[in-house]
């Protein structure tokens, strides 16, 4: 067989494989899950004596019905893309980072501090500095869990969730103390300098495009680089990974560091692009939304984007929906929970079915 023939066959086979990966059937699951979740929530709305159709109409019209609305939606989606991406990177390495919340908070607070402190820098320096500082603090928080997992065998689910609460307490302490806005009694920081605010082009927030570029990069890194292969191999069979010479502990820690830095970046983007300051209540729940979004996007870095935009749109339209229909904005939380429930059962059974360590996580040991 000639060289070119082999190559052709390779190309053909690879395209076959990628067709399989993107087969329509498997992507139907998330779509169906979203629709069924909306139907179930509609029943609950009806039971409350309200009109679900009015509610949904208002929700989606606000979110996607106008350029202005779309701008808000994409702004809300940005941290969601990032927190979803953070959870997905962890899952790829076999780690369930349910602490994206805490990592995101620390990134948000650190970015707010940088945004306030480095006043006077030009924007093209100030913004990157603030983003990097946010990402750094996110990765430090996640790194603690990664280290404890790798070297002490402490399960990351418990440490990340405990760190969520610890970070929240620390952030609260700082935002009500050292970092508090002068002469104010609220627990919040000052507004960041103009130079640290993310630019908005027309109505479209620049942070969103940054998040999309990051998602594409992560996809490429996981699929095409040796580092990505190490992460995926550790995630699927850590015994085989160790046996093949992949430094498992180091890979676990670096996966957590990457995951945490993405989450931290999500917090920074939220601060620099939307809230312009840190205040505890603003970011609640973003990290947990990341879990749903990661699984809704089938743990695929690109697949996360549509899910994040959908949820971001719901978040953007929720207030208006309450105004138009009387349905509480917490409907979105409920929808997220239902979506997660519906999407996970079939997804997990497929995604991890053939994994040799039958379940992704096994107990509290290693």
């Amino acid at each position, binding site marked *: 067989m000639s060289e070119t023939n082999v190559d052709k066959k390779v190309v053909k086979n690879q395209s076959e494989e990628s067709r399989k990966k993107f087969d329509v059937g498997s992507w139907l699951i998330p779509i169906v899950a979203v629709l069924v979740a909306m139907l179930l929530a509609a029943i*609950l709305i009806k039971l409350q004596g309200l009109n679900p159709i009015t509610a949904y109409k208002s929700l989606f019209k606000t979110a996607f019905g106008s350029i202005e609305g779309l701008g808000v939606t994409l702004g809300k989606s940005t941290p969601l893309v990032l927190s979803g991406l953070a959870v997905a990177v962890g899952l790829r390495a076999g780690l*369930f980072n*349910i602490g994206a919340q805490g990592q995101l908070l620390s990134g948000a607070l650190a970015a707010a501090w940088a945004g306030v402190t480095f006043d006077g820098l030009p924007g093209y320096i100030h913004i990157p500095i603030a983003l990097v500082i946010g990402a750094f603090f996110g990765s430090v928080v996640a790194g603690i869990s990664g280290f*404890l997992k790798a070297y*002490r*065998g*402490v*399960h990351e*689910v*418990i*440490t990340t*969730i*405990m*760190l*969520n*609460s*610890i970070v929240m*307490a*620390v952030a*609260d*302490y700082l935002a009500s*103390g050292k970092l508090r806005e002068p002469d104010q009694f609220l627990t919040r920081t000052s507004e960041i300098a103009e130079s640290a605010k993310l630019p908005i082009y027309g109505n479209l927030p620049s942070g969103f495009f940054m998040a999309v570029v990051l998602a594409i990069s992560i996809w490429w890194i996981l699929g095409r680089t040796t580092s990505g292969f190490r992460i995926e191999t550790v995630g699927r069979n850590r015994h085989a990974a160790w046996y093949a010479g992949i430094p498992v502990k180091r890979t676990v820690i670096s996966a957590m560091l990457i995951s945490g830095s993405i989450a931290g970046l999500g917090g920074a983007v939220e601060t620099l692009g939307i809230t312009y300051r840190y205040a505890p209540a603003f970011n609640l729940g973003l990290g*947990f939304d990341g*879990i*749903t979004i990661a*699984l809704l996007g089938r743990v695929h870095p690109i697949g996360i984007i549509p899910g994040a935009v959908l949820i971001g749109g719901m978040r953007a339209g929720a207030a208006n929906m309450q105004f138009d229909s009387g349905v*509480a904005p*917490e*409907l979105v*939380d*409920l*929808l*997220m*929970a*239902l979506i*997660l*429930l519906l999407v*996970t*059962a079939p997804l*997990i*059974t497929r995604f*991890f079915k053939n994994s040799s360590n*039958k*379940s*992704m*996580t*096994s*107990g*509290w*040991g290693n």
Partner: protein
Amino acid sequence: MKMLSKRNGYFLVAILATGFFYFNGSDVTTSVYATGTVFALPLALAAMVGIMCERTGIVNIGIEGTMLLSAFVAFFVSSLTQNIIIGLIAAIFTGSMMGLILAVMAVSWRMDQIIAGTIINILATGLTSFLYVQGRTIPGVFQSFEIPILSKIPFFGPVLFIHGALTFAGIIIILALYVAIYHTTWGLRSRAVGEHPSSADTAGVSVVRLRYINVTIAGAIGALAGAYLSLELVGSFERGFTAGKGFTALALMIFGRWNPLGALAAAMFFGLAQAYANQLMIDQIVNIPSQFTAALPYIMTIVVLTISAGKVRPPAAEGQPYEKGQA
């Protein structure tokens, strides 16, 4: 001579310390211990949920969600019916259902158990946020009462025998679970299923059925822990009401080596630490920021897990779905 075992050592230190504090100020010490018991009970009960599940090989990280939704249902139904007994029953039903859902996902669908538990947690958060309405009240809480005679014992009386009905129920459940795990047929079979399910299966014990039963009953216990918070300890409900107790409970379970009394001791340690920290603040002996006392149990959880990791031996079949005939 037989060496003093490590556990006995801890126990001795605890008694000596308690005695020391007691003779230095009996009223304060008694009240700290009484408060500590109050803090410890929901943690200990939640740890029982973990023990019941994990002894049969099911990892349950949905304890937090089970407690949260049950606490909410307990409060909400009590408020609707103006009857806390009905609220309690509704909560226990809810908890059992949460357990049942976990069992379906983990046992029948053989889903990853950590993800299954997370679904329970997020579902509970979503439901409670959506259904929560401000301004509701309940007609009262389960009031403390004294157990005659026993409550007159110095120190132990106020610490152990003056509580509400749910506390007493909780203490009884913990003791009963201890006896049941080590001395009854059910306990033997549960442990076998959690350690080596195929041996239980080949001995005619249905792994699937026992796992369903235990996870469901555990859900009901989790509901009691949740209802205790909203119907006895606090008398209200807020979003995020359980504040991570369900996760801390898992650490206590591990620290207590999957033994109900061990987990109870660990919970007492946590409860006392918090009670002491509170007392120090009240006495203004030290000026600790309130955020630090709030974060204390979480920090302790991580420390405890880091210490006990690798030294404890979990049930061997934990987290693994069972397929009949694969032995």
